């Protein structure tokens, strides 16, 4: 056995999947000390997931392929130790909470690893009690997995792995399927495991806003190599392009100010830190100059709008299970309008949009689509007007070629061959998929499949486009592209609605926001209005954008509170710092 300084020691590691032509890990060198909390990030396909799999031996034992170089974890050689043995030192937690829960009750699932290792029953009981407490799910002990929320399932997955008492936890995008409340709880658990139990944690995540304040080291990967490695401040204050990775908004603002010499020092990573840093920039007298200054960018959510295209009047809906999902909801959507429907899981968002194209029918109340009562029309007929794209592309893709997948809708609607070809070409062009048209969609990356699913709805040019969670699992660059596509659609006089938890995306796009809680609409207004109303946001368990939070803390300085994104904030601050009035 090899004695090493770090709990993870990787030297010149290169790995190629079977049948792949290019290595996915290319000469990785890495040492992680015990007790570090490491954020591993980088654009889609950069090798993050493969590196995680390597840490507990899934690579190379489960996947075969060729591995060169050395990797030692807790003093054990990864290539020589079977995964079942490494599992006691490294706990691996995956993205999809459902696909790592085996048993029919919470306590039995926690026991699974211990049973496999042949632990005596008393020791199992002790450890189950301990991890239930540590992860805060004691009250769920006898529950079945399908009764848990996403966040509870992911905390169960952590508990189950933790029961084997590993020294290292590796988590591959554990929060991307969760709502912000669930994600927050998971991060809190990780924080306390790291601080109180000295556990080493490797966390893969795209959303730096969410995690940067928790970690003490950031590793940025690109093309199978480590591109940047250091403290969050070191990595994020580097002004060079971080390649598809989103810098936290508060740090972005600081960087822009720093570029003009208006601010100095390491960028703040949290709203509170930004507020403090900005406060120090404004001596008492100067702050008043900023007073009443409005953001220079005009709100884009409420431009000129056309006729109403969807009208919901007093709709009630209760599921057969007895869950009341919609409770007297009324809503109007106009042509050319951009809309974001927000609120915690179970607030009724998806139930609401399923009423737009008739997948669900109101038990009380009416739905009108382009002026006619939807009750008299089939789902197929309504879908011509209202295109609904679901969250997970894998729940709809079934064709062997991208172009056939995209043509499925228009074929069902009876498009003539000439129009069909034209529409498919147009949709593929819109989503940058022309080169992929003859490929099998299953060989494409997750982001590309998502675009195929989007194209397959846009193709028949519906007047209303509804996207359920379009930003999930998308890296920063992909989100940027999505935003410009949404703007294009609006300029074609379509109504665009998204159902989302992604508050930073919304703060940048600035649509009208419909906020839901417990089956009701509790707020409906411009992004500036809704995202700066702490009380309603709290009721809906939505956390506002980082920038908006910073400016709430600065309200005593006399800043307007309507800054919700970097652009607004810059427009509000930079002129006063330059001494302009």
């Amino acid at each position, binding site marked *: 056995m090899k004695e090493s300084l770090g709990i993870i020691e990787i030297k010149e590691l290169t790995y190629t999947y079977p049948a792949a032509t290019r290595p996915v890990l290319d000469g990785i060198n890495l040492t992680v000390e015990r007790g570090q909390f490491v954020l591993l990030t980088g654009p889609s396909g950069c090798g993050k997931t493969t590196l995680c*799999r390597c840490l*507990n031996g*899934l690579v190379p034992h*489960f996947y075969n392929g060729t591995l060169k170089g050395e990797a030692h974890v807790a003093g054990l050689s990864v290539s020589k130790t079977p*995964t*079942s*043995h490494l*599992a006691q030192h490294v706990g*691996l937690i*995956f993205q*999809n909470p459902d*696909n*790592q*829960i*085996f*048993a*029919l*009750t919470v*306590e*039995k699932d926690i*026991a699974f*690893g*211990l*049973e*496999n*290792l*042949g*632990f*005596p*029953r008393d020791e*199992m*009981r002790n450890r*189950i009690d301990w991890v239930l407490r540590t992860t805060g799910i004691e009250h769920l002990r*006898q529950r*079945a997995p*399908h009764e848990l929320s996403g966040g509870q399932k992911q905390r169960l997955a952590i508990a*189950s*792995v933790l029961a*084997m008492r590993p020294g290292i936890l590796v988590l591959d995008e554990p929060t991307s399927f969760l709502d912000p409340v669930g994600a927050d709880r998971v991060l809190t658990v990780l924080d306390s495991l790291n601080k109180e139990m000295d556990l080493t944690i490797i966390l893969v995540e795209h959303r730096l806003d969410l995690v940067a304040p928790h970690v003490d080291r950031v590793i940025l990967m690109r093309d199978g190599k480590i591109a940047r490695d250091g403290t969050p401040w070191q990595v994020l204050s580097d002004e060079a392009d971080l390649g598809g990775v989103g810098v936290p908004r508060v740090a972005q603002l600081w960087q822009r100010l720093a570029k003009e010499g208006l601010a100095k020092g390491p960028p703040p990573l949290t709203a509170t830190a930004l507020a403090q840093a900005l406060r120090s920039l404004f001596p008492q007298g100067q702050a008043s100059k900023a007073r009443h200054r409005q953001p220079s960018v005009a709100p884009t959510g409420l431009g000129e709008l056309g006729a109403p295209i969807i009208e919901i009047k007093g709709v009630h809906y209760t599921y057969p299970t007895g869950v009341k999902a919609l409770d007297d909801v009324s809503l109007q959507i106009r042509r050319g309008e951009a809309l974001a429907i927000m609120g915690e899981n179970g607030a009724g968002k998806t139930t609401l949009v399923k009423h737009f194209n008739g*997948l669900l029918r109101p038990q009380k109340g009416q739905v009108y689509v382009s002026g006619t009562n939807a009750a008299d029309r*089939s*789902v*197929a007929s309504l*879908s011509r007007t209202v295109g*609904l794209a*679901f969250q*997970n592309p*894998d*729940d*709809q*893709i*079934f064709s062997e070629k991208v172009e056939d997948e995209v043509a*499925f*809708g228009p074929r*069902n*609607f009876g498009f003539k061959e000439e129009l069909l070809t034209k529409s498919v070409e147009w949709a593929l062009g819109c989503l940058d998929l022309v080169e992929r048209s003859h490929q099998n969609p*299953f060989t494409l990356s997750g982001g590309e499949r998502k675009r195929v699913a989007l194209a*397959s*709805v846009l193709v*028949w040019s519906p007047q209303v486009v509804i996207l359920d969670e379009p930003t999930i699992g998308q890296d920063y660059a992909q989100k940027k592209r999505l935003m410009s596509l949404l703007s294009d659609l609006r300029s074609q006089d379509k109504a665009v609605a998204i159902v989302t938890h992604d508050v930073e995306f919304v703060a940048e796009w600035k649509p009208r926001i419909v906020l839901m809680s417990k089956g009701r609409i509790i707020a409906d207004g411009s992004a500036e209005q809704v995202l700066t109303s702490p009380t309603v946001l709290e009721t809906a368990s939505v956390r506002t954008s980082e920038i908006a939070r910073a400016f709430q803390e600065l309200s005593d300085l006399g800043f307007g509170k309507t800054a919700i994104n970097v652009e607004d904030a810059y427009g509000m601050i930079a002129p006063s710092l330059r001494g302009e009035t």
Partner: protein
Amino acid sequence: MMSMLEGLKYTAISSPLHGLDPRPKSFMVLTLFLATVLYSELIPLVLVMLIQIPLLAVAKVVGQWLRTLRGAAVFSVFIFATNLLANYIYQEQKLTASIIVSSLAMTTRFLALITAFSVFFLTTSPDKLSLTLQKAGLPYELCFAFITAIRFVPVLAEEAQTIMDAQKSRGLELEKGTFVRRIRNYLPILLPLIINSIRRSLELAEAMESRAFGAVKVRTDLYELRLTKQDYLVFALTLVSLSVILYLRFFM
């Protein structure tokens, strides 16, 4: 038809019947089975049915049992009608009280069997069942597969619904066209479901490896089967009932 399966859906509540070891409980249910098969007259079959109702009441599963019966209603009518028809054609060629009674008896037999099934499956957790099967010599891997299948039923049902919604939103109309066309209409639903299941099984395999599956030869289990006083009592009572049933059937 699907609601007939309702009777097999276990919910974790506590009752004397839930607390029983699956071994004496299965002996009890098998005895009930035997009684329904040995007797073909209406009165004893009705008795076998009625005996079970207090058991269901003690186990607090009467509601679920009634839902099962409602699901089985169509099938019961079918059994009654075919029996009546068969008796009519092959025996008397006219409608008599005796063929109506014997058709009723056959229907009662079916309902009594379903009830016995309900008594067992509504009160026995799959985890205990799996342990019992392992005790009976079934390999652990097989029992694990059985548990995992049960675990993923709700997940698959939800996924199937989402896929159906997604394809309907792209203009798919399931009830349109000829018979062959209608079957083809289900392809866009079945294919993603199958592909997702394959992807899921790979992810599950990875997660199993990461949880030390197969690390030691003799694995332990969080739960254990232990016979209590109640279990022996049930065993003894069942044995007495079995003797009575056999005696009445063969020696009276």
